[in-house]
């Protein structure tokens, strides 16, 4: 039995992964976060750590040492961008840096970092399938994506300097599923969905369970490297919206990009480009490398999307 520490216990992935590893895989799980989550499963040991504090690094190093932690899974990232740009930066970038310092001090043998395929960035000149080696260009208007890009860069530097630690970076694409909620699923659950007129990019999703599977396998087995965590298959945006029975409101790009106070955007502090460019250009990732190592996902993109919308429909009848 190994001891696994999971930062960001209150995030969806952190909480579900902690409970899965503790209850199903029978590992000893230490969950780290600023506040204790409500109704935490008995098998997960909560420890209070605030990664945004200046002394977070040394405090975490002591804790990792004391708990005899062998695996650290870093998931303390915002589920979605907030208007607090500095706060997001402190938590995501500086918090990750503190965590890396602590892992170095505690000589952790295995580190798993949760990233996102959004770090590749939606670009005109992207190939149809982005491999893990593709440069991380992010999107300058999406501050949380840029934080992730920075974290990936810091992690790569750190991994090169600490060869004794096996570092696994997992990049899931947009997660959907019966229970997962974030800015993306909120966008898709609107009754009338605004899209960019004349654009119909291919999208890919990964089911929440498949994503958790990949993280659980990365935490329990030696799999260093960078992997995209995506489901096979792609869906055009138009099909995604049609299968969900949404009314689509195509807006010409220049008009949409001038609506700075657009309701869904005002909550993120980003300009509309930071989100809508992801619905304009291709940023589909190639999952073959990840499937070889972590197994093929149970849900294809279409099945994952169907699972998500059928759950949404059931909720709307309640």
């Amino acid at each position: 039995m190994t001891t696994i520490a999971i930062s960001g216990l209150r995030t969806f992935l952190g909480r579900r992964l902690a409970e899965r590893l503790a209850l199903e895989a029978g590992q000893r799980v230490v969950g780290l976060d600023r506040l204790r989550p409500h109704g935490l499963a008995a098998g997960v040991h909560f420890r209070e750590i605030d990664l945004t504090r200046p002394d977070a690094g040394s405090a975490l190093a002591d804790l990792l040492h004391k708990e005899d932690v062998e695996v650290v899974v870093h998931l303390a990232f915002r589920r979605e961008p907030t208007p607090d740009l500095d706060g997001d930066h402190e938590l995501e970038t500086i918090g990750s840096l503190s965590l890396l310092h602590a892992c170095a001090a505690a000589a952790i043998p295995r580190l798993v970092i949760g990233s996102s395929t959004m770090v590749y960035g939606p670009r005109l000149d992207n190939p149809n399938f982005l491999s893990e080696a593709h440069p991380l260009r992010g999107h300058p208007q999406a501050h949380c994506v840029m934080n992730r890009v920075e974290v990936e860069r810091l992690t790569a530097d750190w991994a090169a300097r600490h060869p004794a630690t096996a570092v696994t970076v997992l990049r899931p694409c947009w997660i959907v599923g019966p229970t997962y909620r974030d800015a993306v699923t909120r966008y898709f659950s609107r009754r009338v969905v605004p899209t960019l007129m004349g654009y119909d990019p291919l999208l890919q999703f990964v089911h929440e369970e498949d994503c958790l599977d990949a993280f659980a396998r990365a935490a329990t087995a030696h799999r260093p490297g960078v992997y995209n965590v995506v489901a096979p298959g792609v869906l055009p945006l138009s099909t995604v919206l049609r299968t969900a029975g949404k009314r689509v409101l195509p807006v010409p790009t220049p008009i949409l990009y001038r609506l700075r106070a657009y309701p869904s955007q005002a909550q993120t502090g980003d300009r509309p480009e930071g989100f809508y460019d992801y619905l304009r250009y291709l940023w589909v990732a190639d999952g073959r490398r990840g499937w070889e190592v972590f197994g093929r996902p149970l849900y294809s993109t279409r099945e994952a999307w169907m699972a998500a919308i059928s759950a949404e429909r059931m909720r709307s009848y309640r």
Partner: protein
Amino acid sequence: MSETKPEAHDDATEPWSSALSRLRDELRRRLSANDLAATETAVGPAQIDPFSLFEDLRRRIGKLGMRERSGEVDDFGLDPETIRSARPLLRLLRQRWWRIEVVGLEQVPKDRPVLFVANHSGLLPWDGLVLAETLEEAHGAERRPRFLIADWLITLPFVQPALARLGGVRACRENAERLLETGRSVIAFPEGVKGAAKTFRDRYRLQRFGRGGAVRLALAAGVPIVPVAIVGAEETHPILFKLETPARIFGLPFLPVTPTFPWLGPLGALPLPSKWVISFGEPLATPDADSAHAGDDLLVARLTEELRSEIQRQVKLALGVRQGVFG
């Protein structure tokens, strides 16, 4: 009603559509038994069935909104349903509008992925689309090659999604490699934008072939190169001259002026009815397909030049086949 319900629910696996049609038949039977019986004398023997009429109308309206379009695309965004619905128009263009003549189709290998390399011309990628259609007609849908499209077409809203559904893929090494790896043929236009944007004065004069990417790709993937000459596409949108300043307003690399565009507005997008000849050459002998050769820059440059002159030669031959531009 109460009698039909248990009947429709007999079999849980019965698809809802057939259950619905049974319900509809039942309703029709009952209605015709009571209400319609009274009106039958007024309408006369030629009875109009309101249900089938409604059903027909619903189907037609549904088709208008393409509600019944499959939405199932492959990994590169090709939509067989879109291709099927565009086929009558494309066939009309190929057979009646351009009266395409195909030469040397028997030289194309049928049992393996192939890299087709063709001369590029015309602002809209009619040449790629027509070549893909021609090959699909000859070798079947699963052997339909994908045509690579230049970046500037991808910047255009509406155009890019339509091209992707018709089998267009952004021209880059990763895409072409993946297509060939997964056993799909690829049509490449190594001249790129230089070929599409050349003015009418330079027609049928092949431009530089990129940096040898096409040959390098074929060597690495171990697939034969089939040189293709396409004659006639040059005259579909003959560019008289290019405007730079107004193009900047629209964010385009240049604004072409053709005999029909921008004078006729959107009608300028219609291609002119030039006579086309598509000529397939002999597959280029690549020195025993081996990825080690892909790194040999001199070899790649030599093969690229050979390929270019071969296509230029074929273009000249094909030009001789047709009597005149519109002949």
